[in-house]
């Protein structure tokens, strides 16, 4: 098959996570996807080496807006392990509550985005409305909707007052009812079934071979969750289950995420009801001893790993961040082969990347050898025009 490689993409670093796509198509079918991963270098890791442990946490929170707590917890957890600090249980519980609220808001956001790319904007509005309840809870506890600033090395910065706990518990029954409705909708709503079922299939063997993590792996039947396999924070004390699915397609990934919403709600409720008394932090020494650690954390999108090397000073010698989206990108290239071009947005959205990455795509028709750039809006329009027929693929 004749191949033409054209290098076009969003070059401006102001775009969120610019990833360069080259899609090789034959008619409407995708032949291959080419990704350029090292696209936007922000130098966060190098900047982290120049800041002490107090000043580095706000920087690491800003690696990602949605999983800001994930990054700061993964780093603080690693440094605490090197320093051999015993973090008080109350701090562990508060970190768990924020982490699970973050997962809930991330999954609700994802469900809205997935609905949006298939043209089901009604669901998008509903999920984002319900997400506000989670955001309000987080804002009450931490003072901010994103970049919570709850962590510091040795514990958490703010305590939860009984009034905050009561207010959070009062919001949960309503959210529970909403999540039940979403479970119903995903299993019975024809619009979603048609667009999600059988799209972007990834078998268990492929999921393992390409190193997928998080909901993408669990939707293919891989029973892997860092919270269960290598428990941290308060997850060992809390009763909860790992959600897996055997479908392996976008439908499976939706089911896993909605199942996780349910589990997260259970964890938040348990932690709020059983919040232990005691201090919320221990005083951390200024310097960390020489050491190396791989701190693993289950972020909303999958397993996040911070590799930290310290050299006895108050700064890290090296911090290496492996984000879950990076681990899942290769699986997208596998999922897309032989799929319709119109299904591309929903398959890419199914791993929950920042969608602005796909703001421009190079298209290559391998028969006519025509190339061109398609804006994301145009792609969405093309995607939605498929809905008018509503034909089962």
């Amino acid at each position, binding site marked *: 098959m004749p191949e033409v490689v054209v290098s076009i993409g969003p070059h401006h670093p102001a775009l969120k996570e610019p990833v360069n796509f080259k899609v090789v198509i034959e008619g409407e079918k995708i032949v291959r996807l080419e990704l350029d991963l090292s696209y936007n270098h922000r130098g966060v890791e190098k900047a982290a080496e120049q800041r002490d442990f107090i000043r580095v946490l706000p920087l690491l929170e800003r690696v990602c807006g949605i999983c800001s707590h994930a990054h700061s917890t993964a780093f603080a957890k690693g440094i605490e392990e090197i320093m051999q600090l015993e973090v008080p249980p109350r701090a562990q519980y508060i970190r768990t509550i924020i982490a699970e609220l973050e997962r809930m808001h991330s999954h609700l956001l994802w469900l809205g985005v997935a609905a949006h790319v298939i043209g089901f904007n009604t669901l998008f509005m509903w999920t984002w409305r319900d997400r506000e309840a989670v955001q309000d809870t987080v804002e009450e506890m931490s003072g901010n909707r994103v970049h919570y600033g709850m962590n510091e090395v040795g514990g958490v910065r*703010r305590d939860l007052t009984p009034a905050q706990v009561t207010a959070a518990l009062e919001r949960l029954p309503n959210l529970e009812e909403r999540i039940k409705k979403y479970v119903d909708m995903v299993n019975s709503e024809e619009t979603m079934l048609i667009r999600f079922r059988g799209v972007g299939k990834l078998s268990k063997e492929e999921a393992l071979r390409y190193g997928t993590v998080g909901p993408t792996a669990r939707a293919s039947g891989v029973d892997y969750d860092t919270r269960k396999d290598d428990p941290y924070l308060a997850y060992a004390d809390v009763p909860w289950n790992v959600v897996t699915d055997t479908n392996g397609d976008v439908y499976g990934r939706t089911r896993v995420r909605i199942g996780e919403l349910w589990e997260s709600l259970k964890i938040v409720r348990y932690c709020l009801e059983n919040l232990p008394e005691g201090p919320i932090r221990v005083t951390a020494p200024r310097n960390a001893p020489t050491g190396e650690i791989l701190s693993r954390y289950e972020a909303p999108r999958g397993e996040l790993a911070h590799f930290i090397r310290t050299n006895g000073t108050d700064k890290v010698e090296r911090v290496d961040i492996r984000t879950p989206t990076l681990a899942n990108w290769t699986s997208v290239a596998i999922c897309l082969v032989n799929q319709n071009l119109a299904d591309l947005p929903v398959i890419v959205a199914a791993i929950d990347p920042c969608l602005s990455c796909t703001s421009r795509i190079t298209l290559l028709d391998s028969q006519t050898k025509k190339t061109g750039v398609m804006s994301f809006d145009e792609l969405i329009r093309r995607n939605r025009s498929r809905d008018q027929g509503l034909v089962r693929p």
Partner: protein
Amino acid sequence: MSVLREMFENLLSRPITILYPKEKVPIPGAFRGRVAITDEKCIGCSKCSLVCPARAITMIDGPREVEFNGKTLNRKKRPQVKLYKCIRCGLCERHCPTGAIFLKNELSSSGTDGEIVVT
């Protein structure tokens, strides 16, 4: 069918959107807003400028006698915060020994003018 039922329920309910300038958005107690300094409490220890991740705080001359723990101290410096450089993380408030620097519960504006300072 669950979507249809939901649609009818929503038709009968009131809009959830807060009409912002007319209606006020409730600001939670923990909210981190505009930075403020109580000059008479500051002992000039420079901790805030050391922990600031954005390097927004500089220590400038500000000699003054300050009461701290029953003793009178002769401080030499006082902090000055570049307002639009501040990321409102609240670390200065967390590490201030006297509570002199803190974040208020009011919204902070944003801009590019580097000369606007809070002292």
